[in-house]
């Protein structure tokens, strides 16, 4: 029998019907010719043929695939049953949809960030070349992934013999606007062999080749990213030869990257790429070219065919000492140089690219994957419970069907197809949940995250779909097969004989209780984890960071196009500050090198009494009025003021931690210290004129560290990227507009970008908030599912014990006693679950420890709160059926049997 006919059964049936009609017509003709009356002729013809419907049915069944046909029957039967019991269907499908959806979403992110290989030629033989520096590296760090310096890169490329080709890149942020508010673009410096090594073909125009990356290139050209091309140029194919403005430099577009390729740094999409040789054009004297202490590049190598990874490591190790010995920065001191020369090169596999998301989100993603896995497990346990209850309820039906000759296999298949239906609907729903949920996750991650646009390709690939399907089918087997097997194995006789619910065996009910205990214990784990994250986030948001978070605007201004001479800058900056202070609603404005959690770092070693001190000290350079604007209290001394100039003695304000650490509780006010400078430079004495309360520097999670504020007016070099800190009592958007106007009036060539301190703080806690929000959601979900599970089991218990309860009440048991009897049973299950869960929770909490702030994973309060929350929810779930049982009229219950 052919499949073709199976799918065209209806056509063939009609065809046969026509054929049979033709027969009848023919036979009637013959009969008429034999001299019959028309009526006789017709009847005789029909007699001759037999029953046409039977014939057609016979042919129709020939055209059907028995197996497929019965599956379809089973599915329809299952669907009818589910429709008749919508609560069961909705609860089952919803739990499964949420369970699989959450799993898929998290897995989608894990896949995009961690598992997927780069969309480049032969990604499997790419490795990343890195530096092993036991005591860390010294110098300045630029770019997203500062792994190598430019001289190191050139030397490695020249001396290695294990790679067929190499590539290097660095990242930059450029401004597309010619003035006013900044329009940011994510930039990439790439070596000439970047695109050829990866085997990328352009969407339009051409890509860079080694010929484009020649030292001192004057008109380098730019390759733009595909999304940028669509966004800025509407995907116009004639874009080659047009130009774009990057940081005020006009560059000609030479080509467009293909849509699939967004760079090897997963999660960071490049808008525009220029050759590394263009670095001096953008950075001027601050260029990274030929500076071994500027860490700015990352590099990949493509391993030659036949060369093993161990050989790569060996070769990199072998060439290390020669390379590091000859690239020591002249600006290093003796100790730095000694450490530098001990550095070693090594490599890591890079087929999946690199990603800053990986480091920050490795643990959180694993934990979330585990959390959603647990949710799915709980959901499955719940479904198994529901299915068991149903199987029990249908035991008689199944027994009858077995008795009249249905095969065990047929019934198993029917019950399995029912669970398959639920699994299918659940998985389908899960895909929808996943789409919505992963969109939410990505927007959460890239949200107010400090300006970096995040892009993760979330196209639901086969891997993600395979994952959901596997989860759904697995779940289906778990919760479908067990009850089905049990139901068909039950003894026929006892099932037929038994009345309602009396056939229930101890063993089966034991399984259902076991499932509830499992649900309760897993839920407890999730609730504990959720509370840990929520309380950790609360600790972070409620701590006193030592600075004001609300109403503070930070304006990042770029002077480079202003045409100001270095000598004119301090005066110009003073002028800006004065004008800012005059804006209505502004009650504090000043200049600062960085703001708390603002992303800039500056640390130095200090010298006290001629003795270089242990440990790095964080520095900030601020103008007069900073402490008032940021509401950081000065506990002693004075703020900076107009007395502090280039000519006056150097002054500093230090925090209490600094005073305590370096002056051991003695009065630090009036004392002096020095800063370690490069060899040959003077170390001026800096006098402490004020002591400020402790304030956080770059990370809220760090403890208070020693911090020094120096006066901006005394800075050796004027800052061409000054930040202005503005505190306003009115709404920030109106202040922002006023600041933009003011700056444009003073010099229309200034670029400015805004950030609020609140947004910076929020952005720095994205991870914590993500964990708290999601784990709270899943914890709540777990409690809900477990509550439904317990409610189901308790309702079932009550139904099963109706007669017993009736007898008890007839014999004089009062309502409270009946309620207690039921609730006690639930409490026992709960206690078992809690004991098992508490152990698991402590183990799970230990895993999450690195993500907690000011909280231990075995925090007793957290565990107590979790037990309280779970306990009250589940006891409520058991109290409802218990109350129902106590309202039972004994006569009704007894009459029923």
């Amino acid at each position, binding site marked *: *029998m*052919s499949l073709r*006919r199976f799918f065209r059964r209806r056509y063939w049936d009609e*065809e*046969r019907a*026509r*054929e*049979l009609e*033709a*027969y009848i*017509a*023919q*036979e009637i*003709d013959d009969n008429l010719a034999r001299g019959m009356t028309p009526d006789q002729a017709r009847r005789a013809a029909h007699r*001759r*043929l*037999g*029953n*046409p419907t*039977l*014939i057609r049915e*016979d*042919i129709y*069944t*020939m055209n059907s695939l*028995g197996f497929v046909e019965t599956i379809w029957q089973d599915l329809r039967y299952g669907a009818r049953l589910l429709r008749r019991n919508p609560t069961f269907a909705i609860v089952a499908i919803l739990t499964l949809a949420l369970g699989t959806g959450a799993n898929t979403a998290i897995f989608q992110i894990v896949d995009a960030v961690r598992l997927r290989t780069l969309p480049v030629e032969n990604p499997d033989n790419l490795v990343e070349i890195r530096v092993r520096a036991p005591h860390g590296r010294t110098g300045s760090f630029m770019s997203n992934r500062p792994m190598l310096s430019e001289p190191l890169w050139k030397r490695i490329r020249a001396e290695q013999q294990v790679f067929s080709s190499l590539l290097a890149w660095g990242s930059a942020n450029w401004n597309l606007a010619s003035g006013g508010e900044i329009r940011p673009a994510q930039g990439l410096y790439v070596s000439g062999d970047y695109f050829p090594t990866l085997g990328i073909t352009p969407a339009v125009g051409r890509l860079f080749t080694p010929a484009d990356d020649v030292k001192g290139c004057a008109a380098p050209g730019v390759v733009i990213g595909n999304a940028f091309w669509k966004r800025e140029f509407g995907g116009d194919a004639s874009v080659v030869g047009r130009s774009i403005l990057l940081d005020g430099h006009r560059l000609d577009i030479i080509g467009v990257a293909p849509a699939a390729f967004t760079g090897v740094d997963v999660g960071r999409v490049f808008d525009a790429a220029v050759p590394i040789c263009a670095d001096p054009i953008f950075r001027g004297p601050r260029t990274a070219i030929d500076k071994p202490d500027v860490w700015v590049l990352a590099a990949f190598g493509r391993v030659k065919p036949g060369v093993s990874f161990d050989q790569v490591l060996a070769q990199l190790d072998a060439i290390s000492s020669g390379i590091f010995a000859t690239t020591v920065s002249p600006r290093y001191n003796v100790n730095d140089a000694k450490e530098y020369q001990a550095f070693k090169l090594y490599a890591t596999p890079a087929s999946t690219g690199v990603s800053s998301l990986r480091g920050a989100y490795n643990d959180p993603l694993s934990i979330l994957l585990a959390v959603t896995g647990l949710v799915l497990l709980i959901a499955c346990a719940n479904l198994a419970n529901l299915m068991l209850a149903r199987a029990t309820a249908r035991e008689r039906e199944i027994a009858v069907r077995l008795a009249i000759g249905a095969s065990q296999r047929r019934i198993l298949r029917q019950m399995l197809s029912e669970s398959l239906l639920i699994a299918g609907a659940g998985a389908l729903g899960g895909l929808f949940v996943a789409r919505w949920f992963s969109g939410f996750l990505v927007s959460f991650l890239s949200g107010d995250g400090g300006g970096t646009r995040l892009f993760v390709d979330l196209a639901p690939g086969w891997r993600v779909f395979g994952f959901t399907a596997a989860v759904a089918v697995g779940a289906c087997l778990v919760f479908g097969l067990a009850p089905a097997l049990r139901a068909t194995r039950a003894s026929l006789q006892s099932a037929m004989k038994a009345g309602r619910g009396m056939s229930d065996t101890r063993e089966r009910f034991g399984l259902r209780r076991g499932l509830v205990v499992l649900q309760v214990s897993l839920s407890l784990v999730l609730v504990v984890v959720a509370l840990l994250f929520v309380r950790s986030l609360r600790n972070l948001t409620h701590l006193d960071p030592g600075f004001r978070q609300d109403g503070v605007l930070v304006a990042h201004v770029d002077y480079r196009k202003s045409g100001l001479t270095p000598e004119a800058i301090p005066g110009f900056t003073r002028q800006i500050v004065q004008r800012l202070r005059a804006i209505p609603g502004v009650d504090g404005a000043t200049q600062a090198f960085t703001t708390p959690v603002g992303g800039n770092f500056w640390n130095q070693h200090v010298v006290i009494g001629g003795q270089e001190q242990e440990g790095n000290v964080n520095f900030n350079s601020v103008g007069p009025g900073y402490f008032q604007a940021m509401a950081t209290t000065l506990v002693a001394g004075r703020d900076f003021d107009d007395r502090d100039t280039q000519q006056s003695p150097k002054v500093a304000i230090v925090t209490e931690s600094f005073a305590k650490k370096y002056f051991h509780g003695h009065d630090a006010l009036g004392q002096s210290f020095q800063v370690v400078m490069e060899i040959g430079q003077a170390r001026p004495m800096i006098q402490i004129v004020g002591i400020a309360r402790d304030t956080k520097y770059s990370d809220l999670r760090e403890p208070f560290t020693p911090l020094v504020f120096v006066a901006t007016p005394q800075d050796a070099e004027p800052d061409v990227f000054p930040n202005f800190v503005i505190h306003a009592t009115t709404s920030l958007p109106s202040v922002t507009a006023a600041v933009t106007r003011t700056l444009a009036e003073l010099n229309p060539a200034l670029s400015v970008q805004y950030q609020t301190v609140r947004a910076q703080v929020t952005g720095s806690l994205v991870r914590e908030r993500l964990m708290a929000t999601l784990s709270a959601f899943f914890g709540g979900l777990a409690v809900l599912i477990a509550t439904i599970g317990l409610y189901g089991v308790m309702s079932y218990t009550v139904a099963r014990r109706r007669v017993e309860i009736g007898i008890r009440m007839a014999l004089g048991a009062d309502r409270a006693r009946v309620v207690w009897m039921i609730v006690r049973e639930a409490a026992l299950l709960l206690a078992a679950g809690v004991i098992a869960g508490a152990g698991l929770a402590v183990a799970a909490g230990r895993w999450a420890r690195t993500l907690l702030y000011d909280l231990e994973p075995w925090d007793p309060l957290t565990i107590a709160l979790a037990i309280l929350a779970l306990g009250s929810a589940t006891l409520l779930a058991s109290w409802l059926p218990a109350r129902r049982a106590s309202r039972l009229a004994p006569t009704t219950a007894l009459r029923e049997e």
Partner: protein
Amino acid sequence: MPRRGRPPIEGDMLQGTLDVLVLKTLAMGPAHGHTIAHAIERRSEDVLQVEHGSLYPALHRLEDRGWIASFWGTSENNRRARYYRLTPKGRRQLQAQTTRWDEIVRAVNRILRPASE
């Protein structure tokens, strides 16, 4: 009911026989169902009374196996009818079935009429 999609069960004489009779009839030229039914009856001198209805599932089955092919044509008395013709595969099958039938007949005859002389 026999399972579909399988060769006729050994010993299911009637069905196998009807199949071979249909093939033999069609070996003489294309014909439609009505003609086939009457031809079998006539040529067996009315010994084999085919229930005409049972012919159609047989035709369907044979067509399914690719032994015969069908097309719509016009009958002797100008009516639309579905005609069947033998395919090369069907011709080979007829040959094989005829040989097998002869063997069976010989075997049965050996049992029913043993050479007693």
